């Protein structure tokens, strides 16, 4: 019996093969194609027309509007209008204004372990948290998938990233990923499959695991997989997905690995990444004293329900520092509703935060809300490339949602652990 990686097992099944070897080029049938309003209808429709074909299977296509939501410029509004009309014409499943695609897709039960999925967005590796082989592609390639139902890929090697022990209080999945960006660099994933494993990962919730897989994109990996376990299955069943036969979806002992890295989760400190790269991450204690103008809690990376809950833990009973603007764009409508039910949105309101639409918002930088010239921001998002969130002279630091919340209160980049201690002593 061959020892296979999780990636090999999923790809072999999708390619209609009993097994595949890393390095070989195969053609695989996609179980699902996810598209959004930017790279989706407006880009694929002219190509499909040119090719003279329709969708390979509308029941396997999910469209989610998020990049140009809330449509606050005339161009954005036009793109959303086109997106809505296209959804109706092609009868695909459409989640309009419900939140960011990577969060909405699993939340609505579209993903299951073992699926082979493409997404028209670079953070598509997020789906890997559910044991799904999911990766991002551009619009022309997506049009090809929509026309044929298949895609070629080079079977990846697996880089096993193992984390042991529980994270300390105030330390999150985001900190794990910033530390990894610094350690292996923005190309360290070498467009292979990263697989996260170990007791730290087992102890994490699904939304925290999604943050790990999400930022596999920042490491330059094609996919960021996590083998399914009881936590995965419980989440998906609640989301309405029909999950069966997931136990064998794991990397076999003795499977070929490109690399195996080991980290101690208990020793990790909160991290912040200096402008303009996630790879500029350091332990927060080593970062220079930096005043901030804007604190942004947003994106598929950093504004899911649990991110909001963590931030609220810091902000409860506190206000945003004078001269600082705290902006919060909850990643999905459902996550925001849950946060509202639990009093989390009220905490944000009391602290003086401005709440933005359930969309990509300033992280993508496509809409009216953007960072102005010379602004210094700390953000819970995945990327701080120069000019991404606004003016080229704006400076974006990255941190966990907890670190962003602590910094909003302090008016400068601040360690969230100090705020946790205060909270406990206040009780």
């Amino acid at each position, binding site marked *: 019996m061959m020892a296979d990686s999780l990636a090999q097992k999923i790809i072999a099944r999708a390619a209609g093969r009993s097994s595949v070897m890393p390095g070989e*080029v195969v053609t695989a049938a996609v179980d699902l194609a996810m598209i959004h309003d*930017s*790279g989706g209808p407006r*880009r694929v429709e002219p*190509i499909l027309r*040119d*090719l*003279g*074909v329709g969708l390979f299977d509308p029941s396997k296509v999910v469209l989610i509007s998020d*990049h*140009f939501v809330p449509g606050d*410029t005339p*161009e*954005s509004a036009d*793109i959303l209008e086109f997106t809505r009309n296209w959804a109706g014409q092609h009868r695909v499943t459409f989640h309009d204004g419900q939140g960011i695609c990577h969060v909405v897709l699993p939340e609505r039960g579209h993903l299951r372990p073992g699926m082979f999925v493409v997404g*028209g*967005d*670079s953070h*598509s590796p997020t789906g890997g948290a559910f044991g799904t082989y999911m990766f*991002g*592609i*551009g*619009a*022309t*390639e997506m*049009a*090809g998938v929509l*026309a*044929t139902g298949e895609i*070629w890929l080079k079977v990846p090697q697996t880089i096993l990233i193992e984390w042991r022990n529980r994270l300390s209080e105030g330390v999150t999945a985001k900190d794990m990923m910033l530390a990894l960006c610094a350690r292996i*660099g*923005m*190309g360290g994933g070498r*467009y292979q499959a990263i697989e996260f494993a170990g007791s730290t990962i087992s102890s994490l919730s699904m939304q925290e695991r999604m943050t790990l897989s999400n930022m596999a994109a920042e490491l*330059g990996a*094609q996919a960021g997989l996590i083998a399914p376990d009881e936590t995965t299955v419980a989440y998906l069943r609640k989301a309405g997905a029909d999950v069966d036969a997931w136990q064998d979806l794991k990397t076999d002992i003795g499977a070929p690995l490109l690399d195996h890295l080991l980290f101690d989760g208990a020793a990790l400190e909160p991290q912040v990444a200096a402008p303009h*790269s996630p*790879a500029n991450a350091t332990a927060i204690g080593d970062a220079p004293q930096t005043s901030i103008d804007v604190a942004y809690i947003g994106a598929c990376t950093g504004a899911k329900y649990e991110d909001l809950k963590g931030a609220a833990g810091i902000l409860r009973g506190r206000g945003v520092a004078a001269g600082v603007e705290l902006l919060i764009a909850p990643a999905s409508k459902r996550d925001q509703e849950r946060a509202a039910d639990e009093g989390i949105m009220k905490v944000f309101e009391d602290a003086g935060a401005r709440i933005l639409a359930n969309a990509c918002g300033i992280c*993508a*930088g*496509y809409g009216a809300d*953007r960072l102005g010239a010379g602004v210094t921001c700390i953000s819970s998002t995945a*990327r701080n*490339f*120069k*000019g*991404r969130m606004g003016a*080229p002279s704006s400076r974006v630091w990255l941190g966990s949602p907890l670190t962003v919340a602590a910094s909003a209160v302090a008016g400068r980049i601040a360690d969230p652990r100090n705020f946790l201690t205060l909270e406990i002593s206040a009780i």
Partner: protein
Amino acid sequence: MSGRAFLFGDDVDTDQLAPGAFMSGGIEALAAHCLEGLRPDFAEQVKAGDVLVAGWNFGMGSSREQAAEALKHLGLAGVVALSFAGIFYRNAINLGLPVLVADDLADVADGDAVELDVEAGLLRLTQKDKTLSLEPLPDNLKQLLADGGLVPHLKKRFAAARREGTAS
């Protein structure tokens, strides 16, 4: 076709190639801002046949294919780099923009006269009398590029399937 080399460093990201603020418009408007954060006059200076030469991990970040489309729109003969980010690489080939990997680019200086021979996998430094060998493309990608990208490639494939269907 000959042109000049435009030299860039490592980790050139898609927000530089296709800035978000211009993503709602057409490729013409977007291409005018291509790489302006790193080199403000890039779009103005670049001419048909020029070659972008870069370090590691070129095109990292977003899946937006306008990053590759903008370079093609500006007339670049191709991009030669030490390595490419995966999605950008696929996008470029799919759009018919040659992207080739070199082992060592230390001999190339900004502004050098260059000639990119995609077929032979060579970057000729015509004034320096030097030729760099580039990594050969895998066969499936060579075919895609030869067809002019994914859309013409699929058209060809569909036409062949239709002919076969008619014949049988």
